């Protein structure tokens, strides 16, 4: 490390003015970043990691202010710098890239113009050469046909492509420090690898320093030199990335390391106190499978409808292309693939919320593929298929208490009658999913993410279903909560003898929870088999690519 660090954060404290008085989001944080160094700031939601970076950039929103400490960048005191000086530093000396790249770009301005805006602001280009320089910036982030893409709008580009544009924007003026705030959250695992490799190679090439802010300890350990772990506004540990998985010093870091899904660990290993392992053997499916899908097809028309325009005779888009799969009783099957591969379309059709174009869906010996989606809600088999949704917050009615949400299927299917009986069943379900009974009368906004996830699970198992479709149930949760929820799901399956169809993009999670895995690409199955076999000896190139893209931290 150099004598004077490039970025030196000392004792930084950030406060937010709220209606209930000031709240300290960041408390006495010390972080230093040397020239050319890559430092990771890792923490779960609410740990203050993003706020720290906003404070450095001085782009905190109006309610936030730096309450104490020092921030200096190459000897410049950023706390004392005027707004004009900060504006010159932002984008030219320190840049940022953000989570959710599509939202991070102006939706109604050509991406080329957005890059030009930055170049011109910092006098890196005049009106004559701005376009050529913007195209060059796009080429540097390996965007093919950059001159053409210069004219594209963000909505015309994929998520990964948008993130490349954001990177081009950030690096256009050759800054010395890049702050990457959750740059790959929400991107597919292969896109994540491509983006991270790109950032690493570009910053290394230019000798830039990088701060990587992420909730994913594995990702940080793979790409960073040093890691600062944050918990509730404090840095609890700073350690070299190479050793943090092997010798975590702080209790919280140990918990985080333990909860991070990684090769060679089981579900139980994710929990802090080595909970007793439930009997591993799964109930063998006797006879016919619970769910048998064959030749399932879903097509969407491409043609646009207009009064004066005849329907274009283009072939329809096949979201799901003659797909066949089966789920035995008591089995859990993982459906894996990247966004747009048709896994959610498949699960929605099995749930009978969407009508298939062709093929059959046989559930419990009965053909349900032909029942129109609009009528399936009253079908006698409906209570026996339930679903847990991706976002635990968005999938709960904000005006219903937890008890009301859990009771909803009971009221709808009339499996339990009478107010007292329903309440008793709700309490039983709450105990089953580990939700304290006194939280039942709270509203979703009064519950934490993990508690909301439990409510969603309790609601799904309320009518004692045979098959539960889990649509990325932990994607929106912090790793420590994810560990608990995954274990809960495994226990419930064991206790209640349900089958799971687990839709996910996270192979590590699937490996721990599922007996069998199905890998999908472009609406088709490219590989399927027992989880261990597929993940350890993949046969399809696509599966190999997916596995290679998972971050491999030095364990």
């Amino acid at each position, binding site marked *: 490390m150099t004598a004077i660090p490039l970025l030196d954060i000392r004792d930084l404290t950030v406060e937010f003015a709220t209606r209930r008085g000031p709240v300290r989001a960041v408390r006495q944080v010390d972080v230093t970043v040397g020239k050319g160094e890559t430092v990771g700031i890792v923490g779960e939601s609410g740990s203050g990691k993003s706020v720290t970076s906003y404070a450095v950039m001085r782009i905190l929103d109006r309610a936030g202010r730096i309450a104490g400490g020092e921030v200096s960048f190459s000897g410049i005191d950023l706390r004392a710098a005027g707004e004009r000086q900060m504006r010159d530093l932002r984008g030219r000396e320190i840049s940022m890239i953000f989570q959710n790249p599509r939202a991070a770009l102006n939706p109604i301005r050509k991406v080329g113009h957005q890059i030009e805006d930055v170049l011109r*602001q910092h006098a890196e280009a005049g009106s004559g050469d701005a376009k050529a320089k913007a195209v060059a910036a796009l080429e540097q982030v390996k965007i093919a046909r950059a001159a053409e893409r210069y004219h594209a709008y963000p909505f015309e580009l994929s998520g990964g492509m948008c993130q490349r544009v954001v990177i081009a924007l950030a690096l256009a003026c050759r800054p010395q420090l890049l702050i990457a705030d959750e740059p790959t959250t929400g991107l597919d695992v292969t896109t994540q690898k491509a983006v991270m490799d790109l950032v690493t190679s570009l910053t290394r090439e230019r000798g830039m320093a990088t701060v990587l802010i992420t909730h994913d300890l594995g990702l940080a350990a793979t790409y960073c030199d040093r890691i600062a772990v944050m918990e509730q506004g404090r840095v609890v540990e700073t350690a070299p990335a190479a050793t943090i998985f092997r010798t975590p010093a702080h209790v919280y870091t140990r918990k985080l390391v333990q909860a991070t899904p990684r090769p060679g660990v089981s579900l139980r290993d994710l929990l802090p106190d080595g909970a007793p392992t439930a009997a591993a053997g799964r109930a063998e499916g006797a006879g016919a499978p619970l769910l048998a899908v064959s030749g399932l097809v879903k097509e969407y028309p491409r043609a646009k409808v207009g009064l004066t325009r005849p329907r274009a005779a283009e072939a329809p888009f096949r979201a799901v292309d003659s797909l066949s799969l089966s789920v035995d009783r008591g089995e859990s099957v993982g459906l894996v693939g990247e966004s747009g591969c048709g896994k959610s379309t498949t699960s929605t059709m099995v749930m009978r919320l969407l009508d298939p174009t062709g093929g059959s869906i046989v559930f419990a010996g009965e053909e349900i593929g032909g029942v129109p989606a609009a009528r399936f809600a009253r079908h006698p088999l409906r209570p026996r298929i339930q679903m847990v949704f991706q976002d635990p917050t968005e999938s709960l009615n904000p005006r219903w208490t937890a008890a009301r949400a859990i009771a909803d299927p009971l009221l709808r299917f009339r499996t339990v009658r009478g107010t007292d009986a329903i309440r008793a069943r709700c309490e039983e379900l709450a105990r089953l999913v580990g939700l304290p009974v006194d939280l039942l009368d709270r509203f979703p906004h009064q519950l934490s993410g993990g508690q909301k996830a439990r409510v969603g699970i309790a609601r799904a198992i309320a009518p004692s279903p045979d098959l539960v479709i889990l649509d990325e149930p932990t994607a929106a949760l912090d790793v420590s909560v994810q560990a608990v929820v995954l274990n809960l799901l495994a226990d419930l399956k064991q206790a209640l003898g349900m089958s799971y169809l687990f839709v996910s993009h996270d192979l590590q999670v699937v490996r721990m929870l599922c007996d069998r895995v199905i890998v999908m690409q472009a609406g088709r199955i490219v590989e399927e088999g027992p989880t261990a076999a597929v993940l350890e000896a993949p046969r399809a190139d696509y599966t190999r690519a997916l596995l290679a893209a998972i971050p491999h931290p030095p364990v």
Partner: protein
Amino acid sequence: MLRTLLDRLATTLPALAGVVVVSFLLTRVLPGDTAAYFAGPAATPQAIAQIRSELGLDRPLPEQFARYVADLARGDLGRSLTTGQPVTADLGARLPASAELTLFGLALALLVAIPLGVAAALRQGSLVDHACRVVATAGVSLPVFFTGLLLVYAFYFVLGWAPAPLGRLDAFASPPPTRTGFFLLDSLIAGDLETFRASLAQIVLPGLTLAIFALAPIARITRAAMLAVLAADFMRTARAAGLSSRRVVVTYGLRNALLPVVTTLGMVFSFLLGANVLVEKVFAWPGVGSYAVEALIASDFAPVQGFVLAMALLYTVLNLGIDLAYGLIDPRVRAAA
């Protein structure tokens, strides 16, 4: 682009057909006997019956409707019994006056409301924000004719700054040669600054009356849209890239915030068309609004139908324009169209 235009026009045809049917039926259902009105209070039943058959009012409704539609197809809106002129000629002479007034009021409202809304959003909770709220509340809570009278009282009667509220030009001036029908533009085209000043002086008060009315929704929507945009991720990106605050607010913020404003504009315009009727009355403005009200009171069907149809056409064309403007501002709409 032409394709989209034709598509859009085609979808408005059913709406216009509906307007034709409804305006015809409404004027027939309304109480009041045209023939009796025109025969005068001393007319004999025979005279009334004669007028009725001359006007074709003794025919069954379907036949009257068929004749009306046939005339319409030839561009004939009938003849006003009050003025004795063809309705098309009457509307043609009066529509530019109304259009000029409405557009002037709308432009005035936009000039004030958008900067006000932006300023209120940028300094939430400040004096500007409160001023914005007060102006907006006052604008919607005062009826237009009342605001009009208030302005006339203050600026003509008390202060004497404005000319008498008696039409588009004072009695001694002659209108500029007709090009667009808008006195402000025509006088400029003719290079006649004297007439321009005179017609500007006449239009300021009624225009202001309409503007105060239109100000409220535009300012409120601009403020709300701007607040939403200020919280957007791309605004943070723009700030983190060190762009100047002017660029961040105008190019990144306002352009995005304008989308809902443009949508509201269509609605505001239709409110203004309604408000126009009263304002024209207060300021003796020779527009279509006062014309239609007079015709309605006289149970004079043809001008009323013509007015309703003209307004429907105007509104349709305006909405088409707004849709196209939307496409210009938002590339996503262009792609979907």
